[in-house]
């Protein structure tokens, strides 16, 4: 019965490595955090289960895994490795995003620009640690706090690091409620945190329809590399705000984004087999990623304080932290921290302005990095 021996040798138990076991535990932790702590469950559950699947040892000669040509997982992963899924997710995000508060208070947009400093300082850090410029750019974008953008840029600049970069980006996005508050408390005074802001003005439908078209033209002409992501984001938003294409917007923000999210999360997770993932590079990437989130948060807050030097109507600098993107979690964190000081202070709507501006900002940054670094 050598066939039986042969089969036994092919079971997962035989070829299981410590690395695989560790990754499976990490996958289960992701799922647990998502369910128990409610951290970004729509992403952590698919990614977590994907990590578990991707670390079952494979039988030699069978096309099963993400990296095996012709396997089912490789077809699904194609949407990740070619950068197809992220723009489709941006389409759905555009179709569910309300830019009204941003339109009603345009100066808050600058906070979404300032927070992108995390991207570039992390790039310098990555260069310092010996990564190539392309790799450094892909690692820096973790500081954009935007999963699809990170996957898109990594697929273009450093496909071999896509797994760790994507996992780092989504992990820290999920951990925003843990990472940001200490930095916010450190960099602001109690007086600053108590600042109330004026209710935003009413935005007309015309403004909301014109914005996605004009905003796209501005971004795409200044940074053509951001065209795909920004184009899809604003296309989705136009579908929503035009009101005459409701059914398309509805499908984009429901069935379509859900399908893509399932496939993207699962296959990104499944790409983290221990032999590809558990490298010293990954550890450095996770370290740099944490750093970039902190810098980005600080960048937004400090720029808000800088703007306050010139403004008559002061900005509550807490909302600068929402400039990192991580929509809508970082805006919620701002709101929570603000309410801890003064329960009557509703910062949520104000924080949405830098929050969505941060999405645009990191997409522009990704476009710049792609243009400058692509070979």
């Amino acid at each position, binding site marked *: 019965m050598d066939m039986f021996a042969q089969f036994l040798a092919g079971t997962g138990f035989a070829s299981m490595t410590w690395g695989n076991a560790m990754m499976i535990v990490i996958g289960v932790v992701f799922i647990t955090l998502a369910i128990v702590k409610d951290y970004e469950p729509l992403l952590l559950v698919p990614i977590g289960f994907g990590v578990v699947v991707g670390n079952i040892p494979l039988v030699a000669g069978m096309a099963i895994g993400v990296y095996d040509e012709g396997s089912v997982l490789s077809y699904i992963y194609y949407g990740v490795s070619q950068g197809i899924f992220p723009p489709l997710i941006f389409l759905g995000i555009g179709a569910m995003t309300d830019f009204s508060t941003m339109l009603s208070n345009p100066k808050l*947009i600058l906070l979404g620009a300032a927070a992108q400093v995390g991207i570039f300082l992390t790039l310098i850090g990555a260069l310092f640690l010996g990564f190539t410029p392309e790799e450094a750019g892909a690692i820096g974008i973790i500081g954009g706090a935007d999963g699809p953008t990170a996957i898109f840029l990594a697929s273009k600049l450093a496909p071999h690091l896509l797994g760790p970069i994507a996992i780092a980006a989504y992990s820290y996005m999920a951990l925003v409620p843990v990472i940001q508050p200490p930095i916010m408390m450190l960099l602001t005074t109690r007086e600053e945190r108590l600042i109330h802001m004026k209710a935003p003005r009413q935005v007309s439908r015309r403004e909301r329809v014109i914005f996605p078209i004009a905003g796209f033209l*501005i971004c795409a002409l200044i940074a053509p590399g951001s065209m795909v992501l920004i184009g899809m984001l604003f296309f989705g938003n136009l579908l929503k705000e035009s009101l005459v294409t409701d059914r398309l917007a509805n499908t984009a923000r429901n069935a379509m984004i859900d399908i893509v999210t399932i496939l993207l999360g699962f296959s990104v997770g499944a790409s983290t087999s221990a032999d590809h993932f558990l490298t010293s590079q990954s550890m450095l990437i996770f370290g740099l990623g944490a750093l970039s989130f902190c810098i980005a948060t600080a960048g937004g807050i400090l720029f808000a304080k800088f703007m306050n030097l010139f403004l008559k109507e002061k900005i509550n600098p807490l909302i600068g932290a929402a400039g990192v993107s991580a929509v809508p979690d970082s805006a919620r964190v701002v709101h929570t921290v603000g309410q801890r000081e003064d329960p009557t202070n509703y910062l949520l709507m104000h924080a949405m302005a830098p929050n969505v501006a941060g999405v645009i900002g990191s997409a522009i940054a990704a476009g710049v990095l792609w243009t400058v670094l692509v070979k």
Partner: protein
Amino acid sequence: MIHVGLQNVMNGRGLAITIIGMTIVFSGLVAISLFIGQLPNLLKLYDRLTTHKNRQPAPLASEAGEEPAQENEIMTAIGLVVHLELERLTGESQKITISRRPGQGAIWASAGKMRSLSQRSTHA
């Protein structure tokens, strides 16, 4: 062997990329910010110009979106109450409703409706 050090940053033009990158990010968002800031004024200007020349104000938004508001208002109020009641009952669950545009496809809908009406009448 990978060397750690500032020379890497120099070789990778890290500073140049950072300065260019932040400049462009700020350019883009400042441009958007300025445009948005001026948009209401531009629209007012456009309205004034078109009202001057023609008899009616611009057609796009203030009309299309807000004129029928007086009659929609009561409906919205009722709709809100119904929505909130449903939300209370179903525990925060939110029904996704694909609202067909009134114009688009209304014929098809009415075709279906007519058919069902006439079908029923054969039994009534």
